[in-house]
């Protein structure tokens, strides 16, 4: 069984009669693999990431998701996080007055506690965060500022990757991490992500454009449209999409 098994997943917005956003999505992710999910706007990419993370606005009507054989959909949001699910947000949320440092330490210790591990000591935590922040070109000053408050789009995305680097998740979901990034920022963020590629970590990279995949080279590319995966292939599939667009999939879906 794969680390992450998504089987025939159907979902809709909670309380919304009828309209399904995911219509039978199936996907397996194993440790060490990077899966890119591409697709036009409205194809359900972000919905998939929210459902995996446990956002409460969605209702799963059919299908299943397991992580290491455990039913992911039964778990609370924070429980999923402690099991190693990390979502890098497309639009990271501001938490005014809470220093990134404080936020991350609280998060890390909350996760560790849930896993029955010792809390990380202050010196160890400082060492960890300084090292990870330096790799991403994040200054100490930025770590003292409120979470995502007053940061540029690029800075916010770097902060998401920093959080990922500190929390060391098992499954990383990157939701349109490239949106709003200029080419330099894209490079820094991609390098940060690549540094986290490891044999025991799986990644789902959601993106609209192929250019991110020049920097984060995926093992698999899936085309998503109208709530399901309509085609899968290797990294060359991304290039084909870049050349031809999503038109053929959209027509076939209609």
């Amino acid at each position, binding site marked *: 069984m794969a680390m992450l098994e998504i089987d025939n997943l159907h979902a809709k917005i909670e309380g919304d009669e009828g309209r399904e956003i995911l219509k039978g999505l199936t996907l397996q992710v194993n440790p060490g693999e990077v899966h890119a999910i591409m697709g036009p706007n409205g194809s359900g990419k972000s919905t998939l990431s929210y459902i995996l993370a446990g956002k*409460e606005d969605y209702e799963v009507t059919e299908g299943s998701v397991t992580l290491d054989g455990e039913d992911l959909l039964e778990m609370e*949001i924070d429980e*999923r996080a402690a099991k190693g699910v*990390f979502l890098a947000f497309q639009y990271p*949320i501001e938490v005014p007055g*809470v220093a990134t440092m404080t936020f991350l330490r609280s998060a890390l210790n909350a996760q560790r506690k849930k896993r029955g591990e010792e809390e990380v000591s202050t010196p160890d935590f400082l060492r960890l965060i300084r090292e990870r922040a330096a790799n991403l070109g994040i200054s100490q000053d930025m770590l003292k500022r409120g979470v995502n408050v007053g940061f540029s789009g690029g800075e916010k995305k770097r902060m998401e990757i920093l959080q990922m680097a500190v*929390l060391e998740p098992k499954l990383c979901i990157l939701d349109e991490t490239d949106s709003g990034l200029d080419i330099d920022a894209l490079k820094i963020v991609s390098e940060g992500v690549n540094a986290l590629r490891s044999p025991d970590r799986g990644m789902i990279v959601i993106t609209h454009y192929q250019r991110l995949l020049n920097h984060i080279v995926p093992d698999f590319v899936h085309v998503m449209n109208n709530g399901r995966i309509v085609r899968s292939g290797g990294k060359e599939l991304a290039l084909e999409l870049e050349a031809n667009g999503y038109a053929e999939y959209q027509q076939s879906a209609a």
Partner: protein
Amino acid sequence: MPAVQETVEQVRSIDVDQYKYGFFTDIESEKAPKGLTEDTIRFISAKKDEPEWMLEWRLEAFRRWQTMREPEWARVSYPPIAYQELYYYSAPKRKDGPKSIDDIDPEILKTYEKLGIPLRERDALLGIESTGGSKVAVDAVFDSVSVATTFKEELARAGVIFMPISEAIREYPELVRKYLGSVVPVTDNFFATLNSAVFSDGSFVYVPKGVRCPMELSTYFRINERNTGQFERTLIIADEGAYVSYLEGCTAPMRDENQLHAAVVELVALADAEIKYSTVQNWYPGDKDGKGGIFNFVTKRGDCRGDRSKISWTQVETGSAITWKYPSCILRGDESRGEFYSIAISNGHQQVDSGTKMIHLGKNTTSRIISKGIAAGHSDNTYRGLVSAHRKATGARNFTNCDSLLIGDKCGAHTVPYIESKNSSAQFEHEATTSKISEDQLFYCRQRGLDPEEATALIVNGFVKDVLQQLPMEFAVEAQKLISVSLEGSVG
């Protein structure tokens, strides 16, 4: 960072329905007869061995009070208070004044221990010096009479007078007579006038010219005797160029009846003097249905009497069933400055109507108001503030920022700012926001591993950070704990 952690632990460690400090100490007390008459006042005055002028002062207040009506403009509602059913004086029984700490009723000491108050000098010294070398002098008020005063000698060396006001009336009658009622007049308002008539005890501080008070001064109030209104009277004077930081904090035992509390605090800052007054208030707020709880009607006012003087109020209000409280500054001296930093938290069925008044009278006076109101449960939280510039207050400036945070959808936050300017050069800025802890914020925090309670504590701590930073270290940590404790159970 560790404080946040502690906050979270604190929330865990406390049972939801159990008010931690709700125990009752059994001590024989000496009470004045129930009800309020001139005889009651004579009783109180005689008990305290007061000079004739003090008794007259009280009686005058009492006569005035009888003609006054309880104010009704605040956004709070409560059943009528039966003033004649209350006791207006109770003191722990003792033969003579305590000679040393050993003379103090062990029961009282135990109560303080439960509260974690370092009453014994030794404890205070050990406890405080290990956290950065600063010292805290505690003038502990148990019900109505101060039972112990610490650090007296060191303060005396600096020339600082810090003692129960009842003692000050006897020992420093000129000082007390000169300043008592000079900031909050006897006739000021219903509750202040009541206090003037029956005040039992409180603290008196005088910091002489040019002296920087060598330690933080701190008083802990507790309300202990059944049906006893508590009428504290505090008077702090910073003479020219002096500086003093005063901390006040309190908890009260659980009980069924509502308890009336009407304190008066007067601050006087002469030229170039500075007074910093910090409060952490955690009185019994009532049970989960809103029954019981303290009624807190407080008049706190500071007079920046001299040029370039400064008065700063910082408060963290988490307790009481009803809070009616507007720590204010009269900016009389030129270039004087007033500050008000407030965190007011209401949960359950608490009602808070609190804010400040900044009265600009002198030239180039400045004031700053930062108010953070947090409403949860079924509570109502109102900020009510007045900023005014007198005709002569050329160049007056004020900055006001009022933020309200709502947790859940059954609570209310209200902002009622009054602004009056009679001088065209005055500049007043007012910012106000009301927000809810958003689902997105909670989702984000939880996605990183925090459970809903941890996430809420973190977000709220962030919201109030600007004000928490104004508190002395000793209080900041305590306040942070209180905030989380007050909000527990507010997350669905």
